[in-house]
């Protein structure tokens, strides 16, 4: 299944990226914009969506500073094997 994890700065923690964007918009003529926050979108295929919360708590999100929301997207099929050659934390590459 395809899923999205939306990661946001925790409410109450200063978000300088959000502030910078909020200040830039009026400079381009966009008025009336407030409460801008910049987070992260993680898209992934998972065989077992029940593991998503555990994945978030252990790696995808730092719960001290971030909130998250899992958005399952059953309407979209998994994309198949990753075309990735990036190093992993297992020390086998890099």
């Amino acid at each position, binding site marked *: 299944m395809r899923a999205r994890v939306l990661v946001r700065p925790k409410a109450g*923690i*200063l978000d*300088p*990226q959000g502030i*910078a964007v909020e200040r830039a918009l009026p400079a381009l003529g966009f008025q009336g914009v407030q409460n801008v926050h910049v987070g992260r979108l993680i898209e992934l295929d998972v065989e077992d969506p029940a593991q998503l919360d555990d994945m978030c708590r252990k*790696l*995808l999100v*730092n719960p*001290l*500073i971030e909130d998250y929301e899992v958005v399952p997207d059953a309407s979209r099929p998994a994309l198949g094997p990753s075309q990735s050659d990036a*190093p992993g*934390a*297992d*020390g*086998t590459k*890099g």
Partner: protein
Amino acid sequence: MRFGVVRFPGTCDDVDALDACAKVGDAEILWHGDRELRGVDAVVIPGGFSYGDYLRVGAIARFSPVMESVMAFARDGGPVLGICNGFQVLCEAGLLPGALLPNVGLRFICRQVGVVVERTDTAFTSACEPGQVLSIPVKHTTGRYFAPDPAALEAAGQVVLRYAHDGNPNGSTNDIAGVCNERRNVVGLMPHPEHAVDELLGSADGLTLFESAARVPVV
């Protein structure tokens, strides 16, 4: 005293850390893919950009094979120092409280700062004088220390180092530059003591942290 300096892919301050350690003892590199700590007496996690800092700073390095051994070593009371990216890794690993966030100004900062020693009862500040101000450089983009409950951290005496004279470069909570765990054997800081170990570098104040570790009875 034998120091082990951990090298991840993307670490860049390992050689300076190795040189700093070698000024007060023996020092060797520990590769992130190895589990063996080779019987070292203290571990240094140096600065850099482990695993490209992908996802979050320190988030992926924290799961490397060597970190399992470092966590066990720390739990047994072994002295562990995390510098900059190493501090971020130790926070992600849960060995130190809190987390590091992007600097308030969103800019990379590289400058000499004054750092006040708040605690001398830790594995890496025992050779310092209480209240001593160390001149050490910072160089980071993600150095704003955040603690969910700073009052509890202060009350527990876990704030080890603080930026001096309104010189907080990154907006960190309570001007905190470095903290320790409850047992005081694990210390993390954003400034770089390994870049301040000789007068030729502008300051030798950073050496005191490594000398402190060399004083600790071998566990």
